[in-house]
């Protein structure tokens, strides 16, 4: 049992370094889901941010930072937008960060422009979000970082001639569908059908959708569902319908093999192939140190996942921007500081693309394996330093 800790409005105040009279206080507005079904994401990112802060007290150039947290609750957009408006007008924040759901980031984007407050996105993955405001930078990933290479890989390496797609019916879901379709069909594959599987708010009974795919018999079944509760249900349904025995390979972006959910999955999860940029099982010294620090801080039974890393890297980006501007944070200054910023993240080398203000990182091909009685991610291939393929290929709204 874990007692949910109180989320105090002001949680982190870090002291002035001795003798630094020029230090500024930087107010950072954090918009994350802290309640409802999505609170688990808020918790991951929150922990990632706090871990970075506690490990790197001097990374902020001696400036004080103050995190002002607001609950974005649902992915509906309006609550997050009101929170952002309030953070800008009432709390007068210098910087905005967080944003798990794409609609929330989209609704808030005009305010970042209007209020000239930079926004560092830590999850929302719809590809064209940074084009909504010149003051948005993203440290997480886009649906295309995973979906597009997955499409190519599914055809070229997994030998899938046909595929079906199941996606949760909201912006990142459609984005992921487009990403996979583009990659897969460019490589020569054929998408038999793309099935919308309900909204992101509640986990539906996936059986009817999967049954339809089972009867259609594609070689690969590409799934996008929001990270969290949906993914376990996906694998359970896949297992209970015996789709693996029919030779249908379950593939998708790494959202569906989130580290925190892996142990809840049935044994049929073994052999699933996903493309993503992070797993707590990455066998690098940098990541091992990160996972250890995480477990020391939050308990041995906790695991960081890609959201935790995004929170960590996002805070690193913010620290860099604050230090580069000596604590006097402006929207233009922040974007300039972040443009071309590189960092040795637990996920590997990352960089903010100067052109698109989006992340560049390695996309890795993950395979779910079972080792010592637990489910694990094994990296079987790497596509190095992927630029968001949506913007690289100028597809749809990505221009």
């Amino acid at each position, binding site marked *: *049992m*874990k*007692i*949910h800790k109180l989320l105090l409005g002001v949680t982190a105040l870090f002291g002035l370094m001795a003798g630094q009279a020029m230090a500024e206080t930087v107010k950072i507005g954090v918009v994350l889901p802290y*309640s*409802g*079904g*999505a*609170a*688990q994401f808020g*918790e991951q990112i929150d922990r990632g941010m706090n871990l970075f802060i506690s490990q790197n007290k001097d990374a902020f150039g001696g400036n004080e930072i103050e995190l002002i947290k607001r609950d974005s609750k649902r992915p509906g957009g309006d609550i997050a937008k009101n929170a952002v408006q309030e953070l800008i007008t009432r709390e007068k924040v210098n910087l905005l960060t967080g944003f798990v759901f794409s609609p929330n980031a989209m609704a808030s984007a005009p305010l970042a422009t209007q209020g000239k407050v930079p926004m560092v996105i830590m999850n929302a993955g719809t590809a064209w979000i940074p084009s909504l405001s010149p003051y948005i930078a993203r440290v997480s990933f886009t649906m295309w970082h995973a979906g597009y290479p997955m499409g190519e890989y599914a055809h070229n390496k997994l030998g899938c001639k046909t595929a079906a797609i199941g996606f949760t*019916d909201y912006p990142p879901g459609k984005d992921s569908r487009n990403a996979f379709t583009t990659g897969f069909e460019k490589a020569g594959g054929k998408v038999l059908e793309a*099935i*919308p*599987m*309900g*909204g992101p*708010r*509640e*986990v*539906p*009974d996936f*059986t*009817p*959708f999967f*049954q*339809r795919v*089972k*009867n259609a018999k594609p070689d690969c079944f590409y799934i996008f569902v929001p990270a*969290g*509760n949906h993914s*376990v*249900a996906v694998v*359970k349904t896949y*297992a*209970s*319908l*015996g789709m693996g025995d029919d030779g249908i390979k379950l593939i998708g972006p790494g959202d569906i093999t989130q580290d925190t959910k892996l142990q*809840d999955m*049935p044994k049929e999860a073994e052999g699933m192939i996903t493309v993503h940029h992070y797993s707590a099982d990455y066998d690098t010294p940098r990541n091992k140190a990160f996972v250890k620090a995480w477990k020391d801080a939050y308990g041995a039974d906790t695991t960081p996942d890609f959201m935790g890393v995004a929170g960590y890297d996002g805070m690193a980006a913010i620290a860099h921007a604050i230090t580069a501007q000596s604590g006097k944070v402006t929207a233009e200054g922040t974007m300039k500081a972040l443009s071309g910023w590189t960092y040795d993240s637990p996920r590997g080398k990352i960089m903010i693309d100067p052109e698109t203000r989006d992340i560049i990182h390695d996309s890795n091909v993950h395979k779910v394996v079972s080792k010592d009685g637990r489910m694990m991610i094994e990296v079987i291939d790497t596509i190095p330093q992927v630029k968001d393929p949506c913007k690289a290929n100028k597809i749809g709204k990505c221009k």
Partner: protein
Amino acid sequence: MEQFAKAAISILFDGVAYAMLLFIISVGLSITMGLMGFANLAHGAFAMLGGYVMVSLMLKAGVPFLLALVLAAIIVALISVPFERYLYRRLYKAGELDQVLLSIGLVFMATATITFFFGPSTVSISVPEFLKGQVNLGFGIFPAYRTFTIAVGLVMIVALWYGFERTITGAKIRAAVDNRRMAQSIGIDVDRLFVITFAFGSGLAALGGGLAIEILGMSPTFALTYLVFFLIVVAVGGLGSIRGAFVAALVLGIIDTAGKYLWPDGGAFFIYAVTIGILLIKPEGLFGKA
């Protein structure tokens, strides 16, 4: 043609499995609403409680699946007794607005309490080996857990039918649903009957909640998320009618499944359209008292 038959069979099977889940959870609500006239929106909270009791039993105390399922139902039934005695009872004669608000208040408190103790994430359990994978039923291969759900549903229907049609308590409940004053005047202890029925309904909800963990997942928002479905089953079936709840659950379960299978873009459109249609024609539900 073969494709069509395959589709029809899977729609029917999945629809029935879903319907059984809806039925087990909703039938208690239907009886309590029919008997006590109480619009209990917190019924889903008892189902949720059942789910969490079961998770605690299995993960913390190592109780096996089937036993935990039964224990969860019993424990929740007992927990529900003081709620009936000290809260619900005060509002039997109040309007439905007060009842709706009281029970929604309870749902909020339940959701907050569960989140406090278990966190906001979905919890899950590991079902025993024989419920994993597929079973061959002779006329086709089906997911084992759903087959089990259907079996439990059928057992519950038979048990309920027997309990209501063939036992004294059942006869008393039927009498009280039909005409409470008359039942009281011939010496039926309606107060006691209310407690028993309420506890029984809540226990059934908990059983359904326990069964639902594997199919729908269990999180603190369960009580509110699925509330609408439970209410629809009750309203469409008709208050206080076991047969009604069963038929309504079947209709809605199968139509919802078919809608998703045949027209995934339509979302949950079907189930609400059908609900409105049925209620407009039969406002008291399919088997309700006119």
